[in-house]
């Protein structure tokens, strides 16, 4: 309804669109935790909190000011194990069509052809956080692959494996895929304004489901844009000053 007509000039930035989609996904969560170096998920989470008048509680890891943790580095994971983190974000050097993420290496594990930093907390959090939102701005056959070289954390597990969490979807710079946990497959849910189905198909290395007509990703409403720009962006600037300056022009004169 609010979507601009096709080919209309966008009155929002890509980052704002992605944050808006993510904020909708967060829904009525009580606690969202955002990993280090994740400005768009952080923007989305603060937007969700603003809309929810303080709910969800948002923890921005790496920012002592925006986390309540006082029990050391384990508290995040203990908190997730207690069922007290509802939404988390993961990315991956590679992500495949079953929702497996690879944060370790490409090629043989003992003789890799590329090495990433490592799995961080993914091999645990992916299992115990109900809504994990996969996030990879680079949408290419290099990143979205048929099968990851190394599974840092699998997209799904057999029924008898304790699993209270997993992927709800994957957002890229081109589109949003929802994830069907039963079928262990992504489904193309919407294509971002300015992008095309053909472009998504040719740049995706894994197979995915799609409806006969793929909707366009809903653009952020004027009210959402206003909230993001006027209220959320200044808060975000305390944690991500460079991002806030680039996207929102905040603090540029400072």
């Amino acid at each position, binding site marked *: 309804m609010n979507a601009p007509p096709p080919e209309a000039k966008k009155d929002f930035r890509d980052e704002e669109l992605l944050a808006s989609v993510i904020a909708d996904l967060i829904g009525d969560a009580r606690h969202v935790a955002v990993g280090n170096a994740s400005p768009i998920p952080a923007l989305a989470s603060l937007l969700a909190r603003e809309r929810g008048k303080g709910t969800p509680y948002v923890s921005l890891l790496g920012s002592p000011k925006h986390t309540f*943790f*006082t029990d050391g580095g384990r508290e995040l994971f203990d908190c997730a194990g207690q069922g007290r983190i509802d939404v988390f974000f993961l990315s991956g050097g590679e992500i495949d069509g079953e929702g497996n993420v690879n944060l370790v290496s490409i090629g043989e594990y*003992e*003789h890799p052809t590329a090495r990433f930093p490592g799995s*961080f907390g993914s*091999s645990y959090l992916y*299992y115990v956080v109900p809504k994990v939102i996969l996030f990879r701005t680079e949408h290419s056959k290099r990143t979205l692959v048929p099968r990851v070289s190394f599974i840092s*954390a699998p997209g799904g597990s057999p029924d*008898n494996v304790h699993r209270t969490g997993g992927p709800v979807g994957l957002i890229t710079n081109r589109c949003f895929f929802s994830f069907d946990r039963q079928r262990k497959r992504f489904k193309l849910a919407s294509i971002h304004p300015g992008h095309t189905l053909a472009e998504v198909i040719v740049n995706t290395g894994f197979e995915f489901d799609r409806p006969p007509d793929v909707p366009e990703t809903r653009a952020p409403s004027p009210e959402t844009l206003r909230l993001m720009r006027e209220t959320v962006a200044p808060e975000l600037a305390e944690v991500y000053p460079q991002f806030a300056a680039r996207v929102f022009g905040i603090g540029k004169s400072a």
Partner: protein
Amino acid sequence: MPMIARTLDDALSAIADGCLLAVPRESTGVGMAATRALIRRGIKRLSLVALPTSSLQADLLIGAGCVETLETSAVSLGEFGLAPRFTAAVMAGTIRMKDATCPALHAAFQASEKGVPFMPLRGLIGSDVLDHRPDWVVMNNPFGNNDPIVLLPAIKPDVTLFHAPMADRAGNIWIGRQRELVTMAHASAKTVVTVEKIHEGNLLDDPQLAAGTLPGFYVESVAVVERGCWPLPLPEHYPWDGEHLKEYAKLAATEEGFASYLERYVYERAAA
């Protein structure tokens, strides 16, 4: 009783070649001055375990050839990119890598802290992290029904090394809310600490300070090194030195550049 060492090298004498050395993540208080001193001393064959991740510290030690085995969940320079010497060493196969995941390392240290041989952890099943850890065991949860769960053996470091805001003369260390440092000290045979300054008076005598204090009972030696985390941050004291890390990332991209970094910032004592 802990030794308040006269020199940094004296304090580090407990850290021997070939030992299992535990170090904390970059935001918790990394002993970077101590790390440079260990490289200058020519320390070798370290089994390094970074709880749960590392950045410049692991990269420097690896680049300088001090590390035989590395157990951690990730090594990266964060916004300054991949850790170049770590990446090169893994790809060249010159270090043995034990890839873990953050809560597994926390749990394995807690197992040692509690004197139990293992700790259970959810997650992991179906991952290649688990597949590459023959030292981890999957068993059926006896309180469940066909419910597999991973058991992690305790990690018992020979020495834990970190940097903290202050110590008192009894060797008590104020660590604030960086409580993994307490668990690391409990889990380790010895703990070596560098601090910004000495606090006059006993930290345990003040209820507010005591709440954030690691008792000297667990501490082997302490040395005062101002800005001991530099160029990494000490929470609530100083931030990253971004310019320096940018320079490091650039230089360490090649072996030659890394050698010149060592020459300038590690072997040159004045810069330590």
